[in-house]
């Protein structure tokens, strides 16, 4: 699904964020991406959703070497991914429904399917009463759930989420994690950047831990009562 080979990354002339980054994620896997703030969690996800390119080395995604993709192919690749951005990136002038519908519409889906599908998902994430609300009228946690709904509406092959439970209380955080688990069971490969230790402990998935400008694969957290 994802295979990094000696990937290096730096922003402009800044310090190296990654050096010789080598790892791979098998299809259908579920990983937490952990590390202290500023370690490069968001940067690694940006590489994965093709917003930035490696300064050195290369990687493959969904079976394609990303260096070889043209703009059209990048767009097609992104349609097979869902991304929850750390800052949500909702479109302010569109309702929750239209925001969540966007990936479907961009991909040319039929309008009848879009509406019912989107309303159903918004209900699932607890926003049934806010379908027509603009993002600005929603709380941070509600906006985050809109962002998550937008990321999963297409049932992507690869789901990338940047601190997706940062703004919601634990109850909802857990509910969202179940949503990700559910998608994962349907075959979606999931990578979730988080520094919520509670979630990492509770949902025992392997971790990609960013250390020394590289990543270390850590097996699932042991049960506290083991």
């Amino acid at each position, binding site marked *: 699904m994802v295979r990094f080979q000696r990937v290096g990354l730096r922003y402009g002339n800044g310090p190296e964020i990654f050096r010789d980054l080598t790892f791979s994620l098998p299809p259908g896997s579920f990983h937490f991406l952990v590390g202290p703030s500023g370690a490069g969690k968001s940067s690694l996800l940006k590489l994965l*959703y093709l*917003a930035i390119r490696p300064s050195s080395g290369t990687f493959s995604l969904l079976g394609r070497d990303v260096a070889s993709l043209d*703009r*059209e192919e990048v*767009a*097609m690749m*992104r*349609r097979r991914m869902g*991304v929850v951005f750390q800052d949500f*990136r909702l*479109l*302010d*002038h*569109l309702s929750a429904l239209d925001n969540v519908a*966007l*990936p479907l*519409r*961009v*991909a040319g889906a039929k309008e009848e399917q879009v509406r019912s599908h989107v309303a159903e998902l918004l209900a699932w994430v607890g926003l049934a009463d806010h379908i027509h609300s603009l993002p600005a009228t929603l709380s941070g946690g509600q906006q985050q759930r809109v962002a998550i709904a*937008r990321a999963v509406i297409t049932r992507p092959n690869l789901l990338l989420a940047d601190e997706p439970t940062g703004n919601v209380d634990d109850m909802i955080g857990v509910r969202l994690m179940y949503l990700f688990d559910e998608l994962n069971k349907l075959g979606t490969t999931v990578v979730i950047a988080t520094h919520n230790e509670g979630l990492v402990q509770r949902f025992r998935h392997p971790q990609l831990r960013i250390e020394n400008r590289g990543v270390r694969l850590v097996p699932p957290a042991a049960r506290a009562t083991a």
Partner: protein
Amino acid sequence: MLFRRSDLPLDRDPAGGFLPWIVGLMVYLAALALAGAVLADGLVERWRSDLADAVTVQIMPGADEQGAQTQADRVEEAVRFLAVVPGVASAKPLPQEDVLRLLEPWLGSGSIAEDLPLPALIAIELIPGAQVDLADLKHRLAEAVPGAVLEDHKPWLGDLARLARGIEILAIVTMALVAFASVLTIVFVSRSALAQHQEVIQVLSLIGARDSYIAAQLQAYSFRLATLGAALGVALALATVLAGSALLGRAETGLLPLAQSFSWRWLLLLLPVPAAGLIALATTRATVLRQLRRMA
């Protein structure tokens, strides 16, 4: 493609707000130039069909005092002279009432006109296609009949045609300049819309929108604005032409019969509307696609 729901909040663009006005103003000028060309063309055509083979001879009054003959005698003499000229089909004196009627707009219909010394007119019809050396004929006629002046319309019809051609070229140049200026304006507006909505566009791109999808949104937007502006400009130009012809019509009935010179050519005045729309569409598309490739 053109009336789809928009993902970009383009209606709030400050740069877009003035696009219809600029396009409208430019289209107004272009449409006026076009109207001038159509009008001139129509006039030339009408006058040509009326006058092409028409030659008139004026027998000037006043010569009566110098010579022994009366004006009527000289008309008869001129008719006799002309009748035998090769290429002339007929030469008929115009009844004096007709001459008076021709002069009515200037002199009024009172009895003063009847007392004035007026030229007598002889209408000559040429055999269609006949090559008659009118300059030579004019010379010989003047020698044979005192006070006879042959009026050939061909030279000034030629001048008029050249003038019409000039106006046509002017109209084409104006249209080209207006199209060019429109393209520049639309490039500017498209770029400013792109910059204004860079974040939204980036999100669209990150969730899998093709460049052409993003371009389509901006295309629809500038198509609407440019079409609106062009419609405005054309409407104003038509109003101007109609107002102008009403004024002229009151002053000189018969000289600028706009209504009579109506033809399919007036439909040309509508041309700027689809043209502006298509230019806006193509320009925005090209600009957006180029900028998106550059941004990545």
